[in-house]
Each structure stands twice: as C-alpha cells, then as structure tokens.
C-alpha cells in the first residue's frame, strides 16, 4: 500500500461512495477547498480530478477535543508534523492541541508558534487550547483574552488540576467575561494522591496505588456548582466514572452550560487490562470498572456525553519501559480511534450514527464549529471502508508513539482518504 501526498487539483470529485449519515450514494464535488455540490451518483461533475471511493462511507472529518502533538518541546515523543499525519491517518481533520507543551501554551507567543508550525507542517487543522493558569500551575490566571485573540479555541489546564476552589472560581468567572469555553479534566489531586490505577478489585489484588472514583466525582460536582454560579461554558474532559455521567445528566436538567467527552479507550477497556501490569494501559484518568464502562457507553448513546476524544498521548518507548508506577500515562490512539469505535458498533454497544456524531458534529459544536457535508462547507472529509480490516503495527502507524491500545489485533475500518480544506491529508490506494 502506498501513500499519496500530492496537493489537490483545483477541483476534485469523489465518486462511488455513500454518505455515512444517510447511506445515500453520492458524488461529492470539491472546489477551492470547499464542498461545491453533493449530487446524485451519475451526475456530470466536470471536476479536474476524480477519485473512486466505491465501497466507502463519506463522513465529515473527525474532530478531536483532546490531542497531544508534543510540539513545542517534546520532540522525542512526536511533532506537529508526525502527529498531525497520524491524525489524518485516523480520519481526523481538526485536533485541539493540549496546552501541555514545553514551554506551556500560556501566552499568545506560544500559540502563534504552534499555529506557525502547523501552517507549515500540519496535515490537519490544529486548534490550540490555551493554559487557563500560568504554567498550568493552578495559581495565577493566564492572559486568556490574549490567548483567545492569538487563536486558542478554549482554555484548559491539561491534565493538571486547579486544586484551589477559589482560583477555579475566578478562572471560570474571568473566562466567562470573554465568552470563552473552559475545559477541565476533573480530578481532586488530594484524593488521587500518588495513585495510578482505578481503586478497585485489580488494584487491591496487585497492590497498585488506587485513584478512587471520588477523586473524579467530587471534582465534577465542584466544577458544576462553580459553572452554574459563574455562568461559564464548561466542558468536562475525559470522564471515567458512572457517577459523573449521572451528575452531568442532573446538571443538564438544571440548564447548566456543560458539555463533556470521554476517551475512546474508556469505552473499550476496564481496569482488568492492567492485570498483567501492562504499562500500555496506564492512563489518566484510569481505566475503571465494567459498570463505569457501561454507564459511559450509555452516556454516549443518549448524548449526555457529547464527544469521544482520542486523548492521543504519544510517548517514546522509554516512557513506557519501567515498572508500572514509574511509567508515563497515556496511549497513542488517534490512528485507531475509529477502529475501536467500529469494534463497539460490531458488538452492538454503539450505533454507527452515535459513534460518528460523537466524532464529528458534537465535538465541533463544543468549540463553536460545524462538521457537516453540505455545499459551501469546508471540505474536511474522511472516507473510510468500515468493513475492511487492518492490523496496526510499527510499519503502518505514523505516530512516534507505538503504544497503541489494540496490539496485534485485526481491526475493522480503514481510512482510505482524508481531505482537510480540500487538500489530501491522507490517502491509501486500494490494496
């Protein structure tokens, strides 16, 4: 299989594919980076270039609310060039870049640097998330208005916590002043302490230091109450507990402006993945119990959880080559996110429309964008064959991080073509 990396012609037609949303067979005409027409299969498109996508589904490109590109500062773990290419391979056309870079993205200058590099080297749209506190230290407010002016789509604290409720309240109030969305991964650091695994059966048996559910749920409750009071638009990232989903539902009933996401691996795995001390599955928040997994799936099905993220965290091999407690958390996921989702569809745990909604329009709306296939919209498109299988390996993954969650397993769903702004970001010729 070879990869085409050429620029798009000025007009392009995708023929023979079906729209994922409606299963209609269509011809998609793209001109100057935008969708010009969505027409019947046999229409005369007059495009300069034609790509046959027979047998494939056409979806809006996926939108990732939580992705670590590792640039600037962590070249051994990845770069905007490598990780955006991985994103395109995974069918993503928009990724929100975590502020956890080095230096941390807590000033307009760093945002500009990220956007400059992305403009030159990225295969997909990169939308930075600004650090809501200086240095992500949870003590002083960052220049949020300046970060937003430079191009940050939301303010967050990465995987760090804002431990002080007074600072958290002021973060929210200040962000609300400028109509900014805040993104927090809820965790009470005092309760999580030195933990690195779900505080449950597996941790008790293996003697792993546990992170109890209350480390998440007390933080969710605190954030919901503060969001209600300040009126800020709150996005809760990476929920892991059943009880968090319940609280989210209750908050929605009270009309609190809150959205939420879950990482794909939380929908597929539980803490039993750690039973052989497999450091690959050291993630944060930790993989929890089967009943948590079921509640998270139900939350996605019902739309209470808006989005599924990759929570892509590429690492160099040394970061994972140590006893479990000494390894760094995170999986390299963005290239297998769609396939993991399709596994859930195969098992009947999600429907395909539920999966695609949580990868496209719902995350887009969290950051005030749209992800649609209609005339006039930007040509951000993912074309995939849901029935074709592939086996991820070092030879076919683009990310620097090779610790993906489904090793040596054949997976459904091959991304054949990704267009970002009408430009081919990823293309796989038929085998």
């Amino acid at each position, binding site marked *: 299989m070879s990869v085409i990396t050429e620029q798009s012609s000025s007009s392009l037609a995708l023929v023979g594919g079906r729209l994922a949303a409606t299963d209609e067979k269509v011809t998609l005409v793209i001109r100057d980076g935008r969708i010009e027409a969505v027409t019947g299969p046999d229409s005369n498109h007059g495009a300069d270039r034609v790509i046959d996508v027979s047998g494939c589904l056409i979806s809006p490109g996926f939108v990732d609310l939580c992705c670590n590109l590792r640039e600037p500062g962590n070249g051994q773990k990845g770069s905007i060039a490598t990780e955006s290419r991985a994103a395109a391979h995974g069918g993503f056309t928009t990724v929100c870049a975590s502020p956890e870079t080095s230096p941390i993205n807590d000033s307009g200058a760093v945002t500009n640097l990220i956007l400059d590099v992305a403009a030159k080297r990225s295969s997909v749209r990169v939308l930075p998330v600004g650090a809501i506190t200086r240095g992500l230290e949870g003590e002083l407010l960052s220049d949020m208005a300046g970060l937003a002016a430079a191009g940050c789509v939301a303010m967050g604290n990465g995987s760090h916590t804002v431990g002080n409720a007074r600072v958290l309240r002021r973060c929210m109030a200040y962000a609300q002043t400028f109509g900014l969305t805040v993104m927090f991964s809820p965790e009470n650091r005092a309760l999580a302490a030195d933990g690195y695994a779900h*505080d*449950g*059966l*597996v*941790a*008790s*048996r*293996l*003697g*792993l*230091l*546990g992170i*109890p559910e209350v480390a998440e749920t007390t933080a969710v409750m605190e954030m919901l109450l503060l969001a209600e009071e300040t009126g800020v638009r709150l996005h809760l990232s990476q929920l892991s507990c059943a009880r968090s989903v319940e609280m989210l539902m209750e908050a929605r009933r009270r009309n609190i402006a809150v959205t939420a996401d879950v990482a794909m691996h939380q929908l597929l795995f539980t803490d*039993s993945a750690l*039973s*052989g*001390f*497999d*450091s690959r599955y050291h993630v944060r928040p930790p993989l929890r119990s089967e009943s948590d997994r079921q509640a998270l799936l139900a939350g996605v099905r019902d739309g209470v959880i808006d989005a599924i993220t990759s929570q892509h965290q590429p690492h160099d091999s*040394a970061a994972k*080559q*140590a*006893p*479990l*407690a*000494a390894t760094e958390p995170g999986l390299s996921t963005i290239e297998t996110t769609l396939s993991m989702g399709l596994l859930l569809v195969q098992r009947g745990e999600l429907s395909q429309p539920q999966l695609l909604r949580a990868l496209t329009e719902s995350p887009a709306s969290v950051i005030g964008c749209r992800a649609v296939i209609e005339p006039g919209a930007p040509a951000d498109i993912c074309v995939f064959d849901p029935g074709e299988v592939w086996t991820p390996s070092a030879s076919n993954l683009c990310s620097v991080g090779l610790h993906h969650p489904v090793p040596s397993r054949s997976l459904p769903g091959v991304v054949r073509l990704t267009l970002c702004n009408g430009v081919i970001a990823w293309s796989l010729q038929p085998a």
Partner: protein
Amino acid sequence: MTVQDSPTTSLQLTEDGQLRHFLTLDGLDRALLTDILDTADSFIEVGERSIKKVPLLRGRTVVNLFFESSTRTRSTFELAAKRLSADVLNLDINTSATSKGESLSDTLLNLEAMASDMFVVRHSQSGAPHFIAESVTPGVAIINAGDGRHAHPTQAMLDMQTIRQHKGSFEGLKVAIVGDVLHSRVARSQIRALRELGAAEVRVIAPATLLPRDVESLGCTVDYDMARGMRDLDVVIMLRLQKERMEGALLPSEREFYRLYGLSREKLALAHPECIVMHPGPINRGVEIESAVADGPQSVILDQVTNGIAIRMAVMSMAMGGQMADRNRQPMGGVTP
C-alpha cells in the same frame, strides 16, 4: 469474584507447569504450592549438616538485586543461594546506578552482560519483578523478594511452611491477619496461599483506613473488632506498622493502634489455646505486639526466619529447573513467554 491472571501465569510457568520465575502466588495451584513446601522440607536437613551445601546451582550466578533495603530477606536469599553452591553477587541499587539516573532497563542490560542466571529482586514498586521478567533475555530466572504492595511470595510460603510444621495441614484452619493490610505485600500473598492450600477462613482485622478497597474480593472476611476476630483462631499473623502511617492521616497514634489492634496477652487469650503467633518481621514491640507475646510459648516468629532459607532454596532450585527445561525444549534459547 476473582480475576483471572493469565498473562502472569504464562509468564512464570513453563508449558508443562513448572516454575520459570517466581513472581506471585496468583495462578499457582495447590499441587505446585505443596511441591514447594515439600521441597523446602527436604532442604531443612541440609541446614542441620556440618557442611551445609548441595550442588544444585553449582556454576550458576545469582544476583541479589535490592532496590529497597532489607536485612533478613537479603541475607536468607544469600545463604540459600550459597547452600545451593551458586556464586552470589549482592547489589544495593538504591545506593548505586539508579541514583545516577540510569534507568532500570539499562541497569538490567548491564547485569545481563555479566551472564547472570538468576535475579532476586526487591523493589518498592508493585510489578517491578514482573517488568524485569518480561524484559530480560530468556533463560534468566526472576525471583520476587517483595515488590511494593503487590506480593512477597517467598515470605508467604515460609509462613505456610511454618503453619504446616505446627498444625500438620491447612484443612479447617482459621487464620487472622492483623494490621496494615493496605500497604502489605505479605498479607496479599498470605491470603492467596491460605485460600489455595485450603484454610477454612482468613480474617483480616484492621481499621478501614488500613484495608484495601473491596478487600473481601481477595478471599477473606473483615472484622474491625479484634476481640471478636480473635475467637477460635488457630493462627494469628501480625503485620508491621510503619511509623509513616500516622503522618498520612491513616491512624491517630501508635498508642490508640496498640490498644485496639496490638496483640497483647489478653487478646491472645481469646483465641484457641494452641493458636500460634506469627510476624514477618521486623517487629515493633509495643506497637503491634506485646513483648511477652513475641517471646512467649505460642510465638513461632524465629521458626519463620529459619524456614526462610529452606523455602528460598526450594524456589530458586525449582525456577532454575524450569529455565533448564525451557532451554532443552528450545535449544536456540528463543523462549518468549
């Protein structure tokens, strides 16, 4: 509900069920545990000879790799290896390479380059010996000498040997483990061994702050009240209480802990008259156990230490046997678990 531990089982056992590493008691069946105890019994006699050596590991190099300090465990492993005629290298890594920034993987590569046959590993992190067993070249046996809060399988087996010496068998036995179960690798391995060997009941006795989440899932019952928990006991095992537990807000004071959970003569009198008293050591007199009990007629604490050498000889010789069986099965040495 018990969780299957197949990745570890296939790592530490050969195709035909022999020990290749000794990482945990999870996944080891009663026949194998009994085999370890029987083999250890046969080695007790070696310790009583004037020349205390057998040639089972002659020409082999055993490295004691201690990332956490230990006196008793390391010295009994050293004696066990020497009585098996192995060459022994003791490395205290907490004062050596890793403090210079070398990663565990790199330390191991260097030690392997010295053609070692066995690593005896103690580490403060749960699963470290498991990681090492997965990383080393095939043919090198890993023996867990205690990892974090996870397991201390040789300690648990020497405790089982001590119980069997005094009680004959495990059938019908009521055993209590008292104290800091949360932080105890010894307790986890003991509970597993006692259940597999057929003890009637394993009780853990401690306040809720010193118990792991869902501790019953390990196969024990819980009693917060020591007086009630001591009833009808055949064996009581006291755990060491670290002073740091007060700082972590797990306990108010040593005095209150001793009053509620310390083994005094009065509390011991509530157990079966022939109840034996055990402690993995080192003991804190007056914190978890009264001196008169530790030194009393029901105490078998020093038997535990003596049995430590025989158990470690048994496990080391069995794991080396499993490694040799692997090598014979695949003469090219390409065994990957």
